[in-house]
């Protein structure tokens, strides 16, 4: 049975490949264009065009109605550079990123290692670590708002004291970081788990034969083999954390937190555009933010390329 099936299939495949290869190439080119066209159209409509429109609006004093806008050159950018609220908001987003990225990377790796090595109830661990990621941000935010409540919240109850987690400038951002770690670590955890599972077992066997202990195996096999995925996790987390918004506003009841301490850049942009109706100004600060994020992404690519070249 198996033999006859192989004899039928293999020549057939070879024949198709050999005979129709040039034709396919031509067709593939045409079809490829058509297949990409819907994406290109949507990408142009929803990304390129809004971006260009945003750049234009940032040079105007447009309001939300779109009526009566006039070209004001770089005035919005000049104002933005002198706007303390914008710098504060940028500082808060950066501070959040600095706290979240290292914590989430280490935590995701530790959880992945745990889930990878545990034999009994493996599925339960994976589910526990990943499940919070499936919650909508409003649910996660409200949940942690209750947990951090100074009077009735579980955190003060368990750890004692009456720390004003959400209402004091020193703790508010930390509370949002803790919520974010719990809520989003599942995604990076999953990436790490997949990467761990793809490390060939014979490497560990060989190392064991050579007398390497568990620590050596981790430092010399696991971590180097995970280098690429770590780079990915860090990059994705930096980009996501810089754009922090929903969990912060939900936990702070849609306000900017104590003394504006948790107002993030995205939140400030939204406020300027949709509360103050200053669409031109909101566009200018989003372009500034776009440039910052693009610079971070490019810097990461450049560092990575340099490292790869150095490794060669």
């Amino acid at each position, binding site marked *: 049975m198996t033999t006859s099936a192989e004899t039928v299939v293999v020549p057939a495949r070879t024949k198709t490949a050999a005979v129709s290869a040039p034709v396919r190439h031509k067709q593939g080119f045409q079809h490829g264009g058509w297949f990409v066209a819907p994406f290109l159209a949507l990408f142009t409509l929803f990304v390129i065009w809004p971006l260009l429109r945003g750049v234009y609006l940032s040079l105007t*004093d447009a309001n939300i*109605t779109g009526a009566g806008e006039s070209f004001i050159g770089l005035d919005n950018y000049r104002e933005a550079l002198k706007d303390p609220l914008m710098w504060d908001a940028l500082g808060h987003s950066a501070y959040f990123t600095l706290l979240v990225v290292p914590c989430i990377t280490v935590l995701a790796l530790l959880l992945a290692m745990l889930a990878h090595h545990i034999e009994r109830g493996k599925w339960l661990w994976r589910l526990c670590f990943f499940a919070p990621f499936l919650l909508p941000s409003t649910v996660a935010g409200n949940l942690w708002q209750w947990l951090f409540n*100074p009077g009735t919240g579980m955190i003060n109850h368990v750890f004692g004291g009456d720390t004003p987690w*959400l209402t004091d400038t020193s703790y508010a951002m930390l509370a949002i970081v803790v919520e974010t770690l719990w809520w989003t670590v599942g995604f990076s955890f999953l990436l790490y788990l997949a990467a761990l599972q793809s490390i060939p077992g014979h490497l560990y066997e060989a190392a064991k034969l050579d007398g390497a202990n568990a620590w050596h195996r981790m430092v010399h096999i696991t971590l180097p083999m995970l280098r690429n995925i770590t780079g990915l996790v860090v990059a994705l987390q930096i980009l996501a954390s810089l754009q922090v918004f929903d969990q912060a506003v939900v936990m702070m009841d849609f306000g*900017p937190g*104590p003394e504006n301490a948790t107002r993030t850049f995205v939140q400030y942009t939204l406020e300027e555009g949709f*509360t*103050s109706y200053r669409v031109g100004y909101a566009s200018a600060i989003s372009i500034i933010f776009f440039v910052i994020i693009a610079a971070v992404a490019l810097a990461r690519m450049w560092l990575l390329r340099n490292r790869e070249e150095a490794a060669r």
Partner: protein
Amino acid sequence: MGRPDLSRRQLLGGLGGLFVAGSFGFAALGTGADALASTADTRVRYWNLFSGGDGYNMIAMLDAFRAAHPDIAVKDSTLQWGNPFYTKLAMAAAGDRAPDLGVMHMGRVTGFAPGRLLDAWDVGLLAKYGVRREDFNPVLWQRGVIDGRLYALPLDIHVQLCFYRKDVLKKAGLLGDDARMVTVTSTDEWFDVLKEARKATRKGLQTLGLHANDQNFQWWFFVAFYTQLGGTWFDDARTEVTFDTDKATRVLEFLRRHVTHGYAVAGAADAEQFINGAPFTWEGNWSVPVFSGAKLDYGAVPLPPVFGREATHAESHTFVLPHQPDRGGATNEAAHRLAAHVVTHARQWAAGGHIPAHTPTLSTPAYKKLYPQNEYVSAMNHQATEPKVWFAGSTGILAQRVGPVVVSATMGSAKPDAAARRMKSELTTLLAMKNPMDGRTAAQGGAVA
């Protein structure tokens, strides 16, 4: 197994066809349903922001109007409260897709480009349907008048109240013979009341729900007490900030003292603790249905006049006519008729805790019987409101900029005098800022009474 390409194509084609047919079907169903629902000649599209108990009351009032006026079909839409609502309303008006009738907070009307995004009311037409200027509190009516024309027809005022539990206050000896809370006329008296009330309060509950870390509530309380002190914001020409930092400091110190003396717990669930037995909470009058529904023995008075003069924070729901290039005719008349009907039949609305703006409603025996509404109806006569400038009003820029500063003082992360100075500097910045709707600063004109 045999025809994967063919079947995939058929499948995709079939699904696409179904989708297109479905869309047409739904579209047809939509128009069909609308057409079937009403045989009326005139259709009024009405946008509001009332959800919860307010939404329930508004729907009941609309149904009453429909029953009384079968010739007018009311198509009402309830949208998300706050900035999303105002954004949508502005964009609809700018894009010539405005509804025939809308609701706004009075404080936001000045900044909403009256004359461009809003059309003025036809006062003669309103009078025809029973709405006359003399039936309203003159100060309230005047707030809706911009450049001499009425842009906002007030439906109610909603105010911040001091809710008190009669059972707890009785135990504390703070209930008068009339079963009402003892009168308070100074800050010292107020803190004495809190001290006594605390002794009668169950352990684990705060004495006063103050929303200490909520920027909106703190700002509203600030407006109330600052007005009690006779504080002002700007000069008449709106070229100078007249904000009095000494008075502001006194108010901020007063609010702060509740937290430092442990009467209010920051972040506590205020209304919930009240239901569970806390003696006081400062809440909006919209909490009346909640507390009445919980069958509490409670009363509600305006915020205590601790600085010697009655004043409590008030905002007002108003009817507006979003701008339509061709406003007029039967639909416009029907919009006037609907607004007039709701305003003059606001007894139902008062059940939700709001104080009807239409004064004849206030003097009806039915309203006078409503409790605790009749205990705080006097708030109509001493409203503390935000200044009449384009950046003020419910959840507007002023509240957004200054609210967090008040919170920082109440919570103790900023000293009251420093916070007062910051408030003044924010006010100075805002006064110089251009109104994005018309490109003018407050001093350069804009909406004026």
